[in-house]
C-alpha cells in the first residue's frame, strides 16, 4: 500500500505549508487539525454516537463484552508481532498464547479466558514500535473519522498496521464492511462515558483531546513507564519563554523530588526540575552540584537543554539514560 503511504505524506507536506505559526510546537497543523476535529465531531454527533448509544441500550452487557472480546482477540497476533519487533519476546509469546487460548477455549474470542489465566492483554501497534525504535512522533495530525494521530502513528496505521488487521482479509466485501461497522460502533460504545467526561472536563475540547493523546502515546511507547525527558523544543522564533512553556507542558507529570532536594518548592514544581526516581536513585551527581543547578529555593528554575538534545532524543533508551545520568540533566 505504498500509494497510501505516499498520499499521506503528500497530504501532510501540503498541510505543513499552511501551518499556523505560534501555539504548540507539537501541533504546527493546528488550523487544519481544528477544522478536521470539528468535522469529526459533526460526524460523531450526527451518526456514530447515536448509533453507539442505541447499540449500548439495546445490547445486553454480556453480549457487548463478547463483541468487544471478539475484535480484541483478532488484534492480539499483531500486538504480539509488535512486541517481538520491540524486543519484548516474552510479551509477544504471551500475546500469541492469548490468541490461541481465546480462539479455542474462549470460543472464537468471545470470552477472554486468557486474561483470567494470567495472560495480560497488551496495547501495541506499529507506531509504538517505531517510537520504541527512536522515531519521533512528528506533528500531531487529526485524521478524518479515525481521530487523533501523529505523522508517525498515522503513517504506521496506513502503511503497516493495516496489514495486521485480519478484517481486511475477509474476502466477502459486504461482510467485511459489516464487521468493520460493528467494530467501530462497539469501540465507540465503549468510549461513550470517557467521551462525555472529556467534554465536561475540557476548557478547550480540541486541546484537551490532543494533549491527552500525546501523553497517552508517550506512555504506551514505554509501556506505562516513560523516562522523564524533555521533548525537543524545535520552535525558537518566539523566544525562551515560549520554548520553556512548551517544554514544561509536554513533560511528564509526576514530579519525583527526592529528599536530597529538601523542601518542595511549589513555584518550581511545575518546571519539572526534578530528576526521575530512577535517576535520583543512581546518585550519579554530588548533591552540591545539583543544588547549585537548582538555584536558591523559590527561584524559577529553567531546565538546561543540551545542544545535541535532538540527537539525544532519538538515541536508543539505554544510551539516553546513561547520558542523562552522567552530566546533562541537572
Amino acid at each position: 500500500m505504498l500509494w497510501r503511504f505516499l498520499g499521506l505524506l503528500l497530504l501532510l507536506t501540503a498541510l505543513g505549508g499552511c501551518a499556523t505559526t505560534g501555539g504548540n510546537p507539537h501541533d504546527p497543523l493546528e488550523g487544519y487539525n481544528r477544522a478536521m476535529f470539528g468535522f469529526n465531531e459533526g460526524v460523531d454527533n450526527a451518526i456514530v454516537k447515536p448509533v453507539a448509544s442505541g447499540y449500548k441500550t439495546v445490547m445486553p452487557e454480556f453480549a457487548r463484552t463478547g463483541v468487544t472480546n471478539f475484535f480484541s482477540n483478532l488484534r492480539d497476533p499483531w500486538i504480539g508481532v509488535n512486541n517481538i519487533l520491540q524486543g519484548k519476546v516474552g510479551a509477544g509469546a504471551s500475546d500469541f498464547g492469548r490468541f490461541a487460548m481465546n480462539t479455542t477455549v474462549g470460543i472464537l474470542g468471545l470470552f477472554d479466558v486468557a486474561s483470567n489465566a494470567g495472560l495480560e492483554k497488551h496495547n501495541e501497534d506499529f507506531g509504538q514500535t517505531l517510537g520504541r525504535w527512536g522515531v519521533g512522533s512528528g506533528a500531531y495530525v487529526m485524521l478524518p473519522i479515525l481521530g487523533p494521530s501523529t505523522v508517525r502513528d498515522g503513517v504506521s496505521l496506513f502503511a503497516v498496521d493495516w496489514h495486521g488487521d485480519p478484517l481486511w482479509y475477509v474476502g466477502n466485501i459486504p461482510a467485511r464492511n459489516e464487521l468493520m461497522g460493528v467494530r467501530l460502533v462497539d469501540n465507540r460504545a465503549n468510549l461513550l462515558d470517557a467521551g462525555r467526561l472529556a467534554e465536561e472536563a475540557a476548557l478547550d475540547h480540541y486541546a484537551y483531546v490532543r494533549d491527552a493523546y500525546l501523553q497517552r502515546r508517550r506512555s504506551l511507547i514505554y509501556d506505562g513507564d516513560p523516562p522523564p525527558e524533555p521533548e525537543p523544543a524545535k520552535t525558537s522564533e518566539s523566544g525562551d519563554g515560549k520554548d520553556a512553556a512548551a517544554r514544561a507542558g509536554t513533560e511528564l507529570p509526576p514530579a519525583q523530588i527526592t529528599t536530597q532536594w529538601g523542601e518542595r518548592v511549589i513555584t518550581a514544581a511545575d518546571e519539572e526540575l526534578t530528576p526521575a526516581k530512577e535517576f535520583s536513585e543512581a546518585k550519579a551527581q554530588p548533591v552540591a552540584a545539583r543544588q547549585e543547578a537548582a538555584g536558591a529555593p523559590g527561584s524559577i528554575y529553567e531546565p538546561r537543554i543540551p545542544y545535541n538534545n535532538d540527537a539525544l532524543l532519538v538515541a536508543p533508551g539505554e544510551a539516553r539514560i546513561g547520558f542523562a545520568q552522567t552530566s546533562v540533566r541537572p
Partner: protein
Amino acid sequence: MKVVIALCFSVFASAVSAQDLAPDAQVKKITDEVIGVIKQDKDIQGGNQKKINDLVDAKVLPYFNFSHMTALAVGRNWPKASAEQQKMLTSEFRTLLVRTYSSALSTYKNQVIEFKPLRAAAADTDVTVRTQVKQPGAEPISIDYSMEKIPSGWKVYDVAVGGVSLVTNYRETFNAEIRDGGVDSLIKSLASKNRSLETQTGSKPK
C-alpha cells in the same frame, strides 16, 4: 477509561486514621472503602449526583492538595499570578476537577484494582502509588497517584490515568489562555465553564 477516572477519586475516601498510613496503604484502604460504598448504593450507581458529591466531599477531597494541583496545571505562569489570582484559580479549578470526576464515580462496575509494590524509601516525602484497573477485553489501565507528605498527612497532587495526567493535561490550554488574555482571562474561562456545567447538570459540588 471511564471507570478508571471514577476510581481516581474513589480511592481517596476515608477516615482520618488513614493519614497515619504509608501512602500506598492509605490509597488501598480508601479505595476499598469507597468501592464498598458504591457497590451498596444503587443511587450512586444510577448516577445520583447529589449523593456522589456528598461521598466525594466527605471522603475524597480531604486527601487532595488542590493548590498544588493548580500550580502544576498552570505551570510556569503560576508564580506570575498574584496571591488573589492564585486563590481564585485554585477555587475554580477545584470545582471543575471535582465535578468532572465525581460524575465519573457512577460508572464503576466491579473492576478489580491491583496495587503495584511501592518503590520508595521510608523517608521519602514524595512518592507515586501505582495501581492497575483490570477490565474485561481490554488491557489494564494504570492509575498513578503522585503524593506528597505535608504536615497534615499524605496528599495527592497529581493523578495519571493510562499515563495521562489529569492535571498537566490542562497545561497547554492554560498557557495559551494566559498568553492570549492573562491570568484573569483564564479565571474567567474556568468560571464560565463551571457555570455552564452547573446549568447543564443542575447540581453544584462544594
